[in-house]
């Protein structure tokens, strides 16, 4: 456990990613302090370039882009994170159940997983969203979660199948522990790195999907989010009139979240899969394992 944490901290990439994400979250949390007032209020003329008064310029409707950016981070991040967690929870449960019970349960669940996996997600999302009309954040969450759990389920299933054969799991079953206890107490803790990768990857996916849906106009246009900012900017042809700030600011926000999460995930990947590690990290890992072995020997 400690080896993993310290490995994480020594990775410059992971720390950089964490700093980006924490900063954005703090900005969202303290939105009323950073940008007081209503972000949808008209405060200036249309399409003003960035000035001292309006750091990121104004939109076509004369709204302050900076205030919209700060306030828009709230729903964008909240929905992204919550959806990512929901996707992971669904995928992990399906994968655990399929991998642990095997047999017919596994065959059915695996079939469902692979089937949902090959159906193109975004067209399915658009079908659901267009029949639902304008959708609120909860509906967006549900739609994204229900269409994108199979990735995690596949990974979890194969790991669980491998773990099921291990001695400690077999022993627990022989002792007569109930299934739920074997699954959650014996198997689940071993899946933590995998679940970490899954959570981060799912959040990235959820933010991309959410932005795409809102950009296409399925979000509530009156709510200020990064996706609806892009939608409004596109509709007011901001790019064509050269109002780059109107598009670039929400785009940069989303790209930053993606970048931060990707950096974190890269490190998670290396912790879970030492084979992928490159040079310096690899020698660091070897040093760590050597250290741990020495500690074990000393303890004996």
């Amino acid at each position, binding site marked *: 456990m400690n080896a993993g944490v310290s490995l994480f901290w020594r990775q410059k990439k992971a720390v950089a990613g964490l700093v980006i994400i924490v900063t954005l979250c703090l900005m969202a949390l303290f939105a009323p302090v950073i940008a007081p007032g209503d972000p949808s209020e008209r405060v200036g003329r249309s399409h003003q370039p960035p000035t001292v008064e309006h750091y990121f310029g104004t939109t076509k409707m004369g709204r302050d882009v900076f205030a919209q950016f700060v306030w828009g981070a709230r729903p964008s991040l909240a929905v992204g994170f919550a959806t990512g967690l929901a996707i992971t929870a669904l995928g992990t449960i399906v994968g655990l159940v399929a991998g642990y019970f095997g047999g017919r349960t596994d065959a059915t669940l695996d079939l469902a997983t692979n089937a949902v996996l090959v159906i193109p997600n975004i067209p399915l999302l658009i079908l659901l969203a*267009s029949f639902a009309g304008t959708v609120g954040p909860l509906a967006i969450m549900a739609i994204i979660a229900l269409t994108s759990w199979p990735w995690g389920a596949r990974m979890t299933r194969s790991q669980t199948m491998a773990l099921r054969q291990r001695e400690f799991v077999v022993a627990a079953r022989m002792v007569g522990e109930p299934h739920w206890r074997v699954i959650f107490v014996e198997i689940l803790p071993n899946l933590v790195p995998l679940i970490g990768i899954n959570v981060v990857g799912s959040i*990235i996916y959820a933010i991309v999907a959410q932005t795409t849906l809102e950009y296409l106009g399925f979000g509530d246009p009156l709510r200020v989010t990064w996706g609806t900012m892009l939608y409004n900017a596109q509709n007011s042809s901001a790019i064509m009139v050269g109002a780059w700030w109107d598009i670039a600011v929400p785009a940069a926000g*989303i790209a930053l979240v993606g970048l931060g999460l990707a950096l974190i995930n890269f490190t998670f990947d290396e912790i879970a899969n030492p084979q992928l590690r490159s040079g310096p990290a690899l020698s660091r890992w070897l040093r760590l394992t050597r250290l741990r072995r020495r500690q074990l020997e000393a303890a004996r």
Partner: protein
Amino acid sequence: MRLSRRRLAVYCVAFLFAIVMNFAVPRMMPGSPVDSMIAQLGPRATPAAIEAIKARFGAIEQPIWRQFVDYVVGLAHFDLGVSVKYYPQTVVEVLGRSAGWTAFLVFTAIVFSLCVGVLLGAVSAWRRGGRFDSFVSPFSVVLIAVPPVIIALATLFTFGVTLRLLPVGYAYDPSLDPGLNFTFFSSVFLHAVMPVLTLSPYLIGEFQTTMRSSMISVLGEDYVTMGRAKGLSEAAVMFGYAARNAMLPVLTNLALMLGAVFGGSIVTEIVFNYPGLGLTLYTASVARDYPVIQGQLLLMTIATLGANLLVDIIYGVVDPRIREGRA
């Protein structure tokens, strides 16, 4: 053929799932979409058109199973209904106009990124931990995480609006007549550059990551050591021995990613006003042209399933172990 039997079951279930979604979603949603569609048809709403829409969306006195059977029989005859926006035209006609452009775009982007991504992945695995690897590998992870919307907007702004290097919108210069001549082809090429460049980063990132990790495990195999021991040149070992075998997981990944590629192409086509399926889907969703949206989902599902099947077949051809196992 034991492999394909299981896969075929998956494809059948996926296809059935798409059909059931198309059938059930409009019937489950609160508020009937039928009225809004009829309202949209306006003066074009002939009794026949109203009847057709009602039958398709369940506003009709018939048991539900009967409706489903009729629906499936209709699909079997390529009857996807009529478009609401372009009324006398059927959905098949509307989609048929644009499917070719999307296929062209997606195919070009995949081939391009496959070349770039596999090469980058192979080289960064070969020089693991080197300067090349420690720049390219994190960069591809970032490429995967950036949404296509943003790449599309950035490309459009840089090359289309600021530098004015490349045309903005349409698949070819509308003043040209489509024909088999150089001017037309070069126009098609120029118009495809930005959309392809937008679709590629995600794909390149995915291919590079998959290729790198599979190449790393292949490099430990005996036959690679053997190739080196024979004194073959570095390039010969890298591409002839290692990369060839490391390609297989990349192929599997490609099949799984196709759905995401279609998602990316939707956004790309909208931003660049490219007349493919994505733009059609967008105009359909703005106009709430439900039959076209449904047809789109079905068509893209069929395309993805077909491509997966193709990859399954290619897999057998490329991997000698699978090929010999069958013989």
